[in-house]
């Protein structure tokens, strides 16, 4: 099961964080720092899966932005690896060429997208048009 989803930039600043298991607010920062350090220190020729304590980190780099997902030991790494790609593709479709700034200023939309895709630590939807359906409906209401 998925434990958390993080988006961080190369400077290590958190841009998005979502936890599917209760973690204390004070411990989150420490956890994020360690996870980010693990991933940032790894080169291109090394694999994208890191074992850290009792869970695994799966990460993917998009320009200056890293997406890090913490999963439990039983999860299939490759499926998570592709899920990250799928998530970014959805963001790309919604924002049309997504950038770090888009994510910073439209945090609520990104959260809605993430909620559609992952619930309670499980992947619930991967169909791009269906993920975006509620969000576009809301946007229409806000406009009209």
């Amino acid at each position: 099961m998925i434990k958390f989803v993080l988006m961080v930039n190369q400077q290590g600043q958190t841009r998005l964080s979502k936890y599917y298991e209760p973690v204390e607010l004070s411990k989150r920062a420490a956890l994020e720092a360690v996870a980010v350090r693990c991933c940032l220190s790894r080169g291109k020729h090394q694999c994208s899966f890191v074992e850290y304590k009792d869970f695994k980190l799966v990460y993917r780099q998009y320009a200056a932005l890293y997406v890090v997902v913490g999963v439990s030991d039983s999860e299939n790494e490759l499926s998570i690896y592709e899920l990250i790609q799928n998530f970014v593709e959805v963001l790309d479709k919604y924002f049309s060429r997504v950038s770090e700034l888009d994510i910073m200023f439209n945090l609520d939309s990104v959260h809605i997208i993430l909620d559609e895709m992952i619930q309670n630590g499980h992947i619930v939807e991967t169909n791009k048009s269906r993920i975006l359906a509620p969000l576009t409906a809301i946007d229409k209401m806000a406009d009209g």
Partner: protein
Amino acid sequence: MKELMVRAIYCEMLGYGVSFSYIHAIKLAQQGNVLEKRVGVFSVILLHDTNLIEVCMALTVVSQMFPKDMIPAILPLVEEKLNHPKEIIRRKAVLALYKFYLIAPNQVQHIHNKFRKALCDKDPGVMSASLHIYLQLIQENPEGYKDLAPSFVTILKQVVGGKLPMDFNYHSVPAPWLQIHLLRILSLLGKNDQSTSEIMYEILDESLRRAEMNHNITYEDTFLLKAAKCIGNFVLSPKINLKYLGLKALTYVVQQDPKLALQHQMTIIECLDHSDLIIKRETLELLFRITNDQNVTVIVEKMLDFLRISEDDHTTIDLVGKVAELAEKYPYKYNEWFIDTMNTVFSLGGDLLQPDIPNSFLKLLSEGDVEEDKKLRLFAVNSYISLLQGDSSKLPQRFLQVICWVLGEYSHLREDLEPGVVVRLLAKLLDMKSSSSETKCWVLMAMTKLCPGGAALALVHDVSETYSSSLDTMLRQRAQELQILSQDSELQAKVLPRSASMEPVEVDSSLSFLDGFVSEALAAGAAPYKPPHQRQEELSRSKALNLEPYGLSLPISISSCSITDRQSPTLLSISSGLSGDSTDFSHKGSRTGYNSTALKLDGVKRLWGRDGYLAQKEQTEEAPRIEAASAVRSADQLGDNNALNSQTPNPTPSPECDQEKQQLASSLFVGLASQSTVSSGSAEQITDPLVSPSDGSDNLLYKSLLDSLDLDVSPPEQTAGLVAPNGSCDAEEEPADADVKEIETPPVRDERVTAEASPHDDPDGSKDPSLASHLPAELSALSHSKVTLLFSKQNLDVSACHVQKEDSVVLVVFISNCSDSFLHQIRLQVDSEELEVRHATENLKISSFSLIVSCRALRLSTEEYGAMWLAFSHDTKQNLTLIHDGRDPLAATLDVLKRKLQLHVVEIIGVEAIVACCLQQDQPCLMHCRMHAGMLAVWLRSPVPDLPDCLLYCCQRALQEL
């Protein structure tokens, strides 16, 4: 306002506490438009809304956070939404139900058929959402959902066949995540079940083929080989991520059959030299699995190499544990190697070591009294002395402690060594600043054991003087011991007899010598002892607000008192259990003696199992993992696979380097090949006698016969809904005349459940009802369950039933012989792990099984019932369906419950009824039923938490089964 809220979320994400803004979020939720509601907190009213988006949002939030207490209020609304025309609403409703199931399983019991409807929904989104529920359900109870396996297979077939709408495709692969999900469910279902797995093979083949479209795999007979081939492709892949996964998969497969690793020797060797630590680690994990006594040294060496460069604490701890495990597995092979390895482990692992590693190392050293052990000890002593003579300040504390212990116990083995020298070395440790006080204690203890004479005595006095004034009480005590014992050599010989050091010290664990003291103290008015958890409980109870009416606080305290009183008998019975255990141990000891003579046969048996049975299990377990991965993989690399496959996957290394690697490979994989030949040979050997098991006193035969029995036990045992002891292994048949043999098996450790095995030879054979008449006389008067046939094999039938005694449930196992020939002697070994486990957790959660078995009628009068009802605090309410069969529905329903669950109907008053039952004398549960609007409203109360919930669930099941 919305903007501010988003900023607050952002702040919280960055780690600042913004609890002050929560209340604003709630305010926001109650006003304004959809967007703001989304940003704020969900309110239940939303569900009544007709607006599509609002309902949708509400359901999303419901499935993310929801308090347990509110589920009954919201459940009908959510259920209603299951029939909504829009697919998105249906999907969300299913997910919300999944959440409900996670937090309170028994509240959604009655809507399981709705899940089935969702599974058959025409929209793939709804269907895939329902898979989450099924994955959870099947994980808990794989047997109950076997009938769904074909439909899962059909779904998978459709998905793989590309029947889904185009927009479900991800990089031209149809819904990879959905496939993974389905495969996971199938693997859970297929475990331990031949027939179900057979249905799946076909589809697994299909999806494999699709996933590996670019690879022309020629199909082999067994699935294992195919899986291995796929993995081969993975491991060879130049993409680093895939390589990692391939290694992982290989690790799983190799656990089942080490031969498979042979094909990939060279790749594995390459991975060992890979620059990425993670890959390296994974490779070591793989090697760890294929270790045998011939390649263990090489593998351990590789692991230690890795340990030296690794920095991560977590990895180190894990790996050190593994090295130690390996080293301990093969200690006698090379004494020096073993000690050296352990030394490296201790010095590298340092103080991160888990404490059980040094403990088991010391245990290994101290056990046994053969010549081999002596050599081992002697070598250990030598190496430690030389270590101490060098620079010992860098050694970790744990290692020093081990050294001290070994020197104290065994340095006398080396005749040429003066105890004084050792003492001097030890004293050097004491003076070191880095030594912790714990280490110093160990040092002093070692000194005490050494009993030096002559020159060193002065040194010892010196040391004990210094430390007897230490601030640390432990240190002070040890120093005192040392001082006194070193002065009085007679006393020392008595306290620390050297020759008897192997004999275990007898400890009176019941502390019976203190009984007198305790009773005296009690008589003098001291409070009786309470175990810590109870103290805690009482403390919290006294702190918490008293919600009960005042008059009731008294009975509670009385009950708690009675619990304390009851502590002492249980304590006694535990100690008696201990003594029972010890006899058991001696029994086992003789058994191991027996086994060691039959050691060869054991090995054979295990291999046979691997070939015959385990492989099949593996296939279903492994395959999903592999191809789940491969499904996604082909998505990613559809394009470049073609190009890559045409190339040779490994760049040819230079010849001499290659040779070196070959050498390493041969040292690593030695033994695997030889093992495989052994296995095929022995399999033949065994199948032969199996055909005609009627004659022969060959040990091998019966071993294999019962081995096969053992294999077959598990599946039928579960379907029968009864826990049968796993009749395992040893059986002997001899040509002697003895018709009935009764063997009392040792009682199960749980005090309440006694397993009694009474095998009856029943020459007339078969599972006729007369089996029940064979019940032992003292049990035949009591009520017993139906005798269920658990399994039959060749000419042996095993059936079981349970009998309810006053204070326990007795499980009776019948073994009947349905052939004409006489069965002369049976040896039965009962391994009742299952029972133990279930009852061990009894206080936390009573599994429904144990409840049905151990539930019994509690006979009460209406007045008693009234008094008890008020005193109990844990309760549950629920509506049950009534049974209509022409009679009064209330009476009919209660009849069913009475029959199935042994409840006692106290009284029926009009449309209401009161019912009682209990688990044990002190664990009653009361039930109040009332007919209301075509339903039976029940209200359960009990002093035991969770008991009402469980009983309710049992009632539901009992009524549904009709």
